[in-house]
């Protein structure tokens, strides 16, 4: 029930923020901040009360869900409201709440027009994302999937930068088209399951056991994968991302990079692998190759960009490649790395986007060529920029390193060649990351900008991000423990279905 309340809380706050904007511009901000803080508080409470019960017990099958809530919605079609959370969902909720608070804070001064409607959209995106992370009914999942799209479309097209309409349209077309493919697959699964068992339902747990012929399974899997790969901005479906990220307002970029991309990874882990274990195994080589291509191609494009925000956007493409590579390695090490990467990338890229947004607000340009030597004037911003640039190039001691090393170690067991190629991404990451430092903060002062350093509000935002990224680098276990059980369950399931219990055990032992 608490999960439903969370979603309702976000939606209600959104409406309230919209309504109050008639009287003042500051009210919607305060209301949104209060709402997201409350959200964060609730999720933190859940995290600390339940992460104890998520301690690895060795028995993955039992008690997978920490919280579970069912309510009938449209019984005629077997549609229910099923909300549930396990370690992964809780982690993602925590991330959502954290970034939600931050995105309200970074918009505090940036958004000046239609403040109420902005916060309405922001909170609805958060509600949609929350829905995606906790829905266990495929129809409800698809519904939430759409709920997060449309406000994001408005966010980009109303408060974005110069080329916003184009970017918003592109974003919408890509995600919507792929989302429809997923919906077709959901319906396909629904009918196949209904025909064979006589029970027409969208319930995830029920559909998990559906017996599918191999070609059918592969086709349905592709439908799901299409939506998630586009969301994950895998090359060659990545081209919406740089435009959308570049044109969105800072809060939009943070949410896009931090959460919307992650829904793709979440979807693959939560739905594609358990629903279609065999088809996923067939798809794995292709997916891993796509992942490696994304890593290198994204890095190459990032290196070539002159628009700072676009550069950061391509960094996301590169980092998402690691996620794809890790998911399809099908072992716990890589999968844990993927989860780590989801969190760490959200923090590091979010930090970079906030810095770029802050720069843009001060000097009205995102062209790298216009910057240079800014460290003298904005040392705090420079130091923060340095930290997040280092995180994005995978410096040990920061969160991204843990993620990447786990992913690559795991994927090395699955495919040596691909992992070695992917490791070249480390070098590429160095090139594009240090280019940011060199062109923006180091070097000669090209133009005498009269700018101020980070203020109190911005330092709170950046400071909290910095603490989190360092925490993730030094104490990753606090997160890895919480998701351990869930990951173990999924990896075992995939391997058992494909190799039979005997082989799965040996695989498990091999990875130990």
């Amino acid at each position, binding site marked *: 029930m608490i999960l439903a309340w969370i979603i309702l809380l976000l939606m209600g706050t959104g409406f309230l923020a919209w309504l109050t904007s008639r009287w003042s511009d500051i009210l919607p901000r305060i209301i949104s901040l209060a709402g997201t803080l409350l959200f964060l508080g609730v999720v933190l409470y859940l995290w600390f009360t339940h992460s104890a019960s998520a301690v690895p017990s060795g028995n993955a099958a039992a008690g997978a869900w920490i919280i579970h809530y069912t309510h009938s919605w449209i019984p005629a079609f077997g549609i229910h409201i099923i909300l549930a959370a396990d370690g992964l969902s809780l982690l993602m909720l925590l991330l959502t709440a954290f970034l939600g608070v931050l995105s309200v804070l970074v918009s505090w001064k940036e958004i000046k027009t239609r403040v109420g409607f902005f916060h309405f959209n922001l909170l609805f995106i958060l509600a949609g994302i929350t829905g995606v992370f906790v829905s266990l009914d495929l129809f409800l999942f698809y519904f939430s999937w759409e709920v997060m799209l449309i406000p994001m479309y408005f966010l980009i097209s109303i408060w974005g930068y110069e080329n916003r309409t184009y970017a918003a349209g*592109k974003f919408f077309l890509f995600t919507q088209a792929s989302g429809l493919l997923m919906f077709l697959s959901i319906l396909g699964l629904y009918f196949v399951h209904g025909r064979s068992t006589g029970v027409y339902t969208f319930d995830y747990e029920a559909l998990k056991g559906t017996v599918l012929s191999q070609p059918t399974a592969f086709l349905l899997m592709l439908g799901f994968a299409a939506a998630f790969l586009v969301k994950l901005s895998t*090359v*060659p479906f*990545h*081209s919406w991302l*740089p435009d959308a990220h570049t044109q969105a307002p800072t809060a939009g970029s943070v949410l896009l990079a931090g959460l919307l991309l992650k829904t793709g990874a979440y979807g693959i882990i939560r739905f594609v692998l358990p629903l279609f274990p065999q088809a996923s195994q067939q798809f794995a080589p292709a997916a891993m190759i796509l992942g490696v291509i994304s890593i290198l191609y994204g890095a*190459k*494009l990032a*290196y*070539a*960009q002159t628009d700072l925000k676009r550069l950061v956007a391509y960094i996301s493409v590169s980092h998402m490649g690691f996620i794809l590579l890790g998911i399809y390695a099908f*072992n*716990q*090490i890589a999968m*844990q*790395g993927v989860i780590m990467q989801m969190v760490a990338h959200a923090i590091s890229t979010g930090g970079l986007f906030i810095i770029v947004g802050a720069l843009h607000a001060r000097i009205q340009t995102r062209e790298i060529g216009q910057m240079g*030597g800014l*460290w*003298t004037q904005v*040392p705090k911003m420079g*130091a923060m920029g*340095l930290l997040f640039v*280092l995180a994005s190039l995978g*410096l*040990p*001691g920061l969160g991204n*390193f*843990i993620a990447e*090393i*786990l992913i*690559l*170690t795991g994927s*090395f*067991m699955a495919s040596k060649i691909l*992992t*070695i190629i992917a*490791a*070249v991404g*480390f*070098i590429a990451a*160095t*090139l594009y990351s*240090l280019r940011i*430092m*060199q062109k923006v*903060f*180091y*070097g*000669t*002062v090209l133009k005498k900008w009269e700018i101020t350093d980070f203020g109190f509000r911005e330092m709170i935002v950046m400071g909290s991000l910095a603490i989190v990224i360092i925490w993730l680098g*030094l*104490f*990753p*276990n606090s997160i*890895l*423990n919480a998701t351990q059980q869930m990951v*173990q369950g999924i990896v075992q399931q995939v391997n058992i279905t494909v190799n039979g219990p005997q082989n799965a055990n040996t695989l*498990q032992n091999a*990875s*130990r």
Partner: protein
Amino acid sequence: MSELLWLIVALPFAGSLVLALAGKSLPRLAAAMIGVGSVTLSAILMLFVCLDFLHANPAGTPVHQMLWQWINVSGFSPAIAFHLDSVSLTFVFVITFIGALIHLYSAAFMWKEDGFARFFSYMNLFIGFMLLLVLADNFLLLYMGWEGVGLCSYLLIGFWYKDPGNGYAARKAFTVTRVGDTAMVIGLFILFTNYHTLNIQDILQAAPHTWAPGSTIAIITAYLLLGGAIGKSAQVPLQTWLPDAMAAPSPVSALIHAATMVTAGVYLIARTHVLFELAPIVQTTVAIIGAVTLIVAGMSALYQHDIKKVLAYSTISQIGYMFVALGVGAWSAALFHFMIHAFFKSLLFLGAGSVIAVLNNEHNMFKMGGLWKKMPVVFWTFLIGACALSALPLITAGFYSKDEIIWQAYASDKGSIVLWLTGLAGAFITALYTFRMVFLTFFGNAKAEPTYRPGVAMTLPLVVLAFLSFAGGFIQLPDNMGHVTLFSQFIQHTLPTTVTTASGHAAEWIAQVIAAIVSIAGLALAYRIYYNKPFPAAEPVRNPIQRFFFQGWDFDLVYDKVIVQPIVFFSRIDKNDIIDQFYTGLASIAGLFNKGLAATQNGKLRWYAMALGIGAVITLTILLYA
């Protein structure tokens, strides 16, 4: 006392954090106190731990300290844990001790600079990471230190960030070493897949039972680790970053690019010696790389004008000696030379830094001269350092350390006459360029006036290091001269003894005499050419061969043409992402359809009527003939 091991590492980190957070608001003195103080405390603690280690267990049993479990995923469970044995203790000693001295020196050297606190924050961070590197009990933590020191090197090379050239040098250093690091990471993957652990000691114990000597996988792994080592230690072919790294302030060059970080490769190979012994061909490669490097870098050093560049190439060359030693299995000789080299090379860098500072940032040796009277302390200490570097016989520590390497290059079971000759040639070149530097800088006509005299904070470290460069050698004397083996015995708790084939004091005597003669010959030649000779201060016109050596054998040129330019070109041409063009192509096709159809909506009534008429005709035709 050894339970305080973590504090040695934590103190510099804490200092760095405090300076990074509060540096701006602290007065200079406070920042210096924190920066220097944290490392000095570390050094003092280290002395206690060291005494404890020597007293409590004469057998040299390693000390292990576990702080917390870092990662724990399905068998992948590196911890934040320290492992202290004689090898790491040597390194910790050099890092903290020389580190503290250099910090003290920097406090005076950097006093007038902007970003004083930032400088110390980076320096402390470096010490912390370097200690992490040498104390790590598993490869992942080692890698963390490894990358961390690379980062600090990057930050400090680019410390004067306003000059874009410094930034580029910093980037180059980081990127080139990252190439090696990536090879090393892949090596770690192989190790983990085979041993299911990253704990260094566990792997070293298991390796001989798991891998047959000379097996392919052992060779590949050793090569990958070697890749990391040559990147960090600036060996051929990844040596090109180090000369450019001289853009850093001089104390940084002394600490990072001479004494500590660049020898991390030596540490790595010594630490994983078991793996290298399992792959003899790789160990031979190590020796060959060292030999090639020491000649390549030595030749380049001969042609430099920038005093720091001479020292940089000299550093590359001296690490080449260490690699030769590692390659022939003379483990303790390599580490001994590392320690002595750290003393005299940081001394030389600090001395050079003083000279550069008092001459208003003048790097060109040909514009110096006659400084020996004006800066006596700097001169005498620099001279001692130079003698040690040239390995002048009997009195300098450099002689004992380098001579051992040259001797082992011949006498070890893996040694050969070629390596020995290369070592001798290197020794000759070393003496030549070293005294070229000394004569050009301190003798001859004064071409520039010192603006001030270095204070005590700057000269005290020089004196201490000069003493060590002189006296440090006596803890390890050759068999035929006193046979003092304090150091090698200490190291042999951890590393195997060197297997020598050639024996007998007679051969060793002859070899030592030859080595001594070679060094002195180099000195004499330098005296002939450079002592008190007038040289034009301007850059001379170089002939192609001189330019070739001056530019470090044109490695940079080749890399630029073969690697850098293609990458940049490839990035530029596809800046707008060909895949995106595909989608925009789709969109513009749809747009074309739109345009075509929109053209029919021209608002003309007759046009619509015509369309209706034609439609009627077509419909009728279909109805009639279908």
